[in-house]
């Protein structure tokens, strides 16, 4: 099987997505988790965009719409997570999970 450059680009995007997914689980700081989740979503959106090449004489609109919806919903969820982080930081004076666990509870 011939390996095309597009295949390599898609493979790298998947590796980026998996790395970000790993960080979502393992990062101890909430903002790092949020950023990792955002990188994961961006890499999935880019994966969609990688299949938006010319199709039947036009750019295929479906991957572009899917990428837009993923990015738009991700920014909405990003806002929700940041508001959650605000609440945590006001209660625990930190966004680090280990500090929160070792610190005082309410």
């Amino acid at each position, binding site marked *: 099987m011939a390996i*095309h450059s*597009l*295949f390599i680009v*898609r*493979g790298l995007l*998947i590796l980026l*997505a*998996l790395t970000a*997914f*790993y960080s979502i*689980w*393992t990062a101890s700081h909430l903002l790092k988790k949020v950023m990792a989740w955002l990188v994961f979503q961006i890499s999935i959106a880019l*994966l969609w965009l*990688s*299949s938006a*090449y010319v*199709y*039947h*004489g*036009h*750019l*295929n*609109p*479906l*991957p*572009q*719409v899917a990428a*837009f*919806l993923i990015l*738009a*919903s991700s*920014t*909405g*969820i990003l*806002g*929700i997570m*940041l*508001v*959650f982080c*605000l*609440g945590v*930081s*006001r209660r625990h*004076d*930190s966004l680090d999970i*280990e500090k929160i*666990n*070792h*610190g*005082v*509870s*309410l």
Partner: protein
Amino acid sequence: MKQTESFSFPRFLFSRLIVWIILPLLGALLFYGLTALPSEGDENPTFHVASRYLDRGTAETGFSFPVLAVLLDYRSFDLVFLSLFFIVMTLMAILIGVVENLPIRPFSQVWAWTALLSSSLLLAAGWLGLRTGSNFMDYEFWAGLFGPTARVHGAEITGFLLLVTAACSFIWTYQVLTSGKEKRFGHP
């Protein structure tokens, strides 16, 4: 106030174990999707419906740009789901502003109410279309009421309402996030 339990090694191991179970599964799923995607220049119609959108999009929807035709007309139902994220974001920001008694100026609350109003209008119009027509935002139903141009205008109004909802939600959330900084991180 009391001290919480200290660092738990089994819990740490369990969380790492879970991620190493899920990660290969997710990787396999993504690589399976990768092999299903057509390579460059391939005429294999992976997205069957795309050819219909490209062939009839302009005639049916009135949009010359296929992405807008799909986003605002054919797949307008997705926009309603999208607006739900912004509603939740706005409501959470209102809630934390009230609970934490954040010093937010009354004028700033206009952004929150505008976001809620525009999203409510979007949901109400969609609900009416769903009750009377066959889709959530049934543009053919609106075209029957207001003439053939109602379809494209309806789609434009949908996009406008979503844009207003998103913009106002972001401005409102930003104002909540930046207010009351002096009370954070141990600075009473």
